[in-house]
Every structure is written in structure tokens, then in C-alpha cells.
């Protein structure tokens, strides 16, 4: 509650929060099927129809309603982004805590493995994973999650290492608290702030990557809808039907902008050190 108030008194947090909120509502409506038209329905007579009162954002080559497909695409992109970031965060927390807590051999092995993953440019690693599993929605989820896991692991391990040596952890141990209790209560609670910031920025990156993979034809497969896929389809038609390019393009931009703004605001709020330095 306090955090929400802080976000709304922060100028970029207000805008970012509003955008993210709006997109989440659109995504839910898209999932529930509450769209202006059936996103898969082909209105053959109205192919490449310009935007008007019936088709708010026009129709595509097959006569499908762009606005409805856009809503479905946003929910698709959000599902992929949220699922992959959730997976990456959980994996990163477990690995980061294990590395920090057990130290020694555990730490060395886990962190070197993360170094190896970080040695690949992100999109290349994602392509490699897709080559192994084959393209599809859940492959993109996995690929994005694996790419982002090392970053979460590092975000968790650093602070966890310094927290581990703090007096309150020693005190908890003397009281006989179990290892899991200390890890979940004492360490995790103190990691919430850096993790929140990282999760928000990761979501922006997840949206971007999902759109990129779908654009290449390696993510969401037709006839399902995705923002990247819609843009890929618009390429050869943009002069004839610019609405096919402009609406999905702007929708991706604003969605990513929302998460970036929110992430910046959260960093300002949760980490006073960077307050004055964030653009």
C-alpha cells in the first residue's frame, strides 16, 4: 500500500504504473475473449479494411480484426513475459541463495556456470535453446527464463552474501531458527527491494524478446496472435495498410515504456542511493 502511494507520487512511476495497469486490463480482457470481434474470425468481404467505427484498427490480409488481435497479442506477450520472468526469478533466487549460503564449492560451481551463460549474447542463447526444443510459446518462455536466470542469480547472491554475515542472522541462528526459516524470512525479505526492481525491468526485456522471437517466426506460432507476429505480417503490406504496422508497433513501444518507467521509479523509491541519478 505504502509502495503504491510512493509510486503514484513519483512522476514517471505514475505514468509507468498507469500504462502497466491498462495493459494488464487489456491482457485480461483479451484472455477472457472480451474483444470487439472474434480475433480468429475472417471477415472475407472486409479484407485490409481501413480503421473505422466497426474495425477500430482496421483488418488484416485475412479480414481479421486488428484491434481484437492486438488485445489477444498483448495477453499472449504478457503471459510469455510474466511466466518467463517468474521462472527466472525463482531459479535465480534458489541458485543465488544456495551460492551465498553454502559458499565454497557450491558458490564456485554455480557462479562459473552463470558466467558461461552470460558469455552468450542473449538473443543467441535464446536461438540456441529454440533450435533444441523447436519454436513455440513455451519454448520462448523457457529461452527467456534461461537467459535471465544468471542476472537474477547475481542480483540475489551479492546482497545475500553481505546479509549472511550480519548480526541478526547470527542472532536468529542462536535462537535455533532453522536454515530454511532464516533463508526465507531473514534473507528473502531483505532481498525484496532489489528483486522488485529487477523483475520490472526484466518484464520490459521479456516483452521485447518475445516480440523479437515471434517477429523472426520462432516464438508464438500462427494462428495465435502476438505483437511480434503481427508486425512481421505487416512488412509487405505497410504501404497499402499502414495500420497493420502502426498499431502493433506503438502498442509494443508503449508497453515496454510502461515497464521501464515503472522500473526506474521503483529503483528511485526502493534504493535511495540512486535517487538523483536516474534519468
Amino acid at each position, binding site marked *: 500500500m505504502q509502495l503504491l502511494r510512493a509510486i503514484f507520487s513519483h512522476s514517471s512511476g505514475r505514468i509507468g504504473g498507469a500504462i502497466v495497469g491498462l495493459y494488464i486490463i487489456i491482457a485480461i480482457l483479451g484472455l477472457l475473449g472480451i474483444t470487439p470481434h472474434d480475433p480468429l474470425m475472417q471477415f472475407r468481404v472486409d479484407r485490409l479494411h481501413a480503421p473505422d467505427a466497426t474495425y477500430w484498427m482496421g483488418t488484416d490480409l485475412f479480414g481479421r480484426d486488428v484491434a481484437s488481435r492486438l488485445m489477444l497479442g498483448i495477453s499472449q506477450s504478457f503471459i510469455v513475459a510474466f511466466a518467463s520472468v517468474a521462472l527466472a526469478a525463482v531459479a535465480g533466487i534458489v541458485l543465488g541463495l544456495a551460492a551465498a549460503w553454502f559458499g565454497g564449492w557450491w558458490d564456485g560451481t554455480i557462479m562459473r556456470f552463470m558466467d558461461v551463460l552470460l558469455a552468450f549474447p542473449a538473443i543467441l542463447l535464446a536461438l540456441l535453446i529454440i533450435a533444441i526444443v523447436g519454436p513455440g510459446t513455451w519454448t520462448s518462455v523457457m529461452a527467456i527464463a534461461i537467459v535471465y536466470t544468471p542476472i537474477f542469480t547475481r542480483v540475489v547472491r551479492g546482497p545475500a552474501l553481505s546479509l549472511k554475515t550480519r548480526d541478526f542472522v547470527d542472532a536468529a541462528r542462536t535462537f535455533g531458527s532453522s536454515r530454511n526459516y532464516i533463508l526465507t524470512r531473514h534473507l528473502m525479505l531483505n532481498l525484496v527491494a532489489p528483486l522488485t526492481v529487477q523483475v520490472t525491468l526484466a518484464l520490459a526485456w521479456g516483452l*521485447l524478446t518475445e516480440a523479437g522471437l515471434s517477429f523472426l517466426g520462432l516464438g508464438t506460432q500462427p494462428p495465435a496472435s502476438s505483437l511480434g507476429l503481427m508486425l512481421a505480417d505487416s*512488412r509487405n503490406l505497410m504501404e497499402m495498410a499502414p495500420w497493420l504496422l502502426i498499431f502493433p*508497433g506503438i502498442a509494443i*513501444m508503449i508497453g515496454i*515504456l510502461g515497464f521501464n518507467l515503472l522500473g526506474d521509479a521503483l529503483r528511485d523509491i526502493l534504493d535511495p542511493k540512486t535517487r538523483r541519478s536516474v*534519468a
Partner: protein
Amino acid sequence: MNYLARRLMTFPLVMLGVSILVFVSIRLVPGDAITAMLGTEAGLLTPDQRAALEAYFGIDQGWFTQYWRWLAGAVQGDLGVSVTFGKPVLDVILERFPLTLELALLSMVIALAIGLPAGIFAATRNEKPSDLAVRIFAMIGQSTPNFVFALLAIYVLSVGFGVLPAMGEFTPFLENPLRNLGQMILPALTLGFAFAAAVTRISRSAMLDILSDDYIRTARAKGVPARKVIWRHALPNALIPVVTLSGVEFGYLLGGAVIVEQIFALPGLGRMVLDAILQRDYALVQGSVLFIALNFMIVNLLVDLAYAVLDPRIRLGGK
């Protein structure tokens, strides 16, 4: 232990890890290499023919032997033969690399030429409308996927000005520099736009941090002109994070810009990897991924070294 020494020591270790990961992941791709190569004709092979082919490509051995052979070859620059190109993998990669390198360099020049002045300008006008304008622009730049930028740019150029970006046959720089730059400018701008946004943000925040430092206050109190305070006293220190960011970003770009190359039909590394994956050219995927990861790591290592040179605190202390 000294930071640099430790950094140099882990380099071969991580590289070895990368090679193992690449090798193993390629072998996890479903289907065997022979079938991938011959398609349905693989079904016509007699067991003897299949065995002969497997022996020819060295895949009749166990994984460990295969890996050892591949690694030993890779160290000597032999990455195997590409099935789709019928040429040594390294030759295919080196044919594509100049374009990728040029694109990465051009994008970095564009990013620094726009981002650095914009960031410094915004920092000196902190919280004024001009600062806000720069920040909004940078935020939008950072939130625009490069394919959206590229498609919008093509649309605006073709519909608004009636010009189509030069595509089709690619001209190497040395053959015809002007024609080459005409082909490269739009892709470079596309990649440079988001890159410039990142440079703007980091140089602004670094500059702001430093402008509030005591030594700057001292210089100002001594009556050093504002211009000199910024260019002489503040800028050199503010450049440190900019160098890091640009280096890391440059390293990414050396891996090939898959999407942008695809949109502008440029024969760079990124598109080659994508095609190799789609066509299951295992030797080419394996070799190029190794090549790209090696480049990426070398650039990152150089960035770390540059960082240590620029900032003595890192050279002396640990990580």
C-alpha cells in the same frame, strides 16, 4: 589476488564451459545429423553406407571423443565444414564478419555522437525543461524495439519521401564506400538509436553524480570557468561508465543483429546463425556460436581492462 589476474585466469575456464555447452546443446537437437543432412533420402541408406557417413563426419565415436576432436580442431582454427555452404565453417564466418563489424562500429559512432553530448547537456540543465526533453527522448529510445524502429523508418521513408532503402545485392565497403554506406546507414541508425538512448542515460547520470562531488565544488569555488569544469574536471571521470556500457553493447552487436539484418536483407553474422539453425547446419551453428561467444568475451575482457586502467580503485582492490 589481483583483480586483473583473476579475470584473466577465469577466461579460459569460462571459454571451456562455453564450448562444452555449445557442443552438448547441439547434440540435444532432435534427430541425427545424417538425417538432417540428407532429409528423406537418409531412409534409403543401407546400414553400411550410414556407418561410412558417420565415420566420415566423425560422429561414430562417443561424445567425449567427438568433443575432444572438435575442440582440438577449433583451437587450430578448424571448425569443420558447413553442410549448407559446402565450405569450411571459419571461411563462411569470416566472409560475414566484416559486415557485422562495420555495422557495430557505425552504430557505436552514431550512439556516442548523439548520446554523449545529449547526456552531458541534460546533466548541466538538471530538472529544467531541456533536461526533461532529453530524458523523455532517451526513455522512448530505450523502449523501442529495433524492428519497430526499422519498420517505421522504412515506412516513413517510402511513403513520406518516396525513397526505398537500398536493399538487394550487398556492396562491401572497400568495393564502393558510398554505395556501401548508403546500404548501411539505415540499419546503423536503427541499432544506434536505442544504443544512443542508453549512452544518453548513463552519461547524464554519471555526469550528475560527479558534478556534485567535492572536487568539482572546489574547482568552482576557485573560479574555474563552468565550461572548463565540465570538460576538464568532470568529463574524464564521467566517461568511465560510458566506456563500460558502450563496450558491452558493442560486444553484443558483434554477435550479429539478427532481426535488423533480417529486415534490411544484410548478409551478416546474425542472419547466418539464424539460417544455420533453421537449416540444421550443426557445424556452422556450433562454430559460429563459439566464434561469437569468444568475441563477446574478449570485448568484455577488454572493457574490464579499460575500466581498471581508468579507475585505479579496481586495479588495486578485489572485485
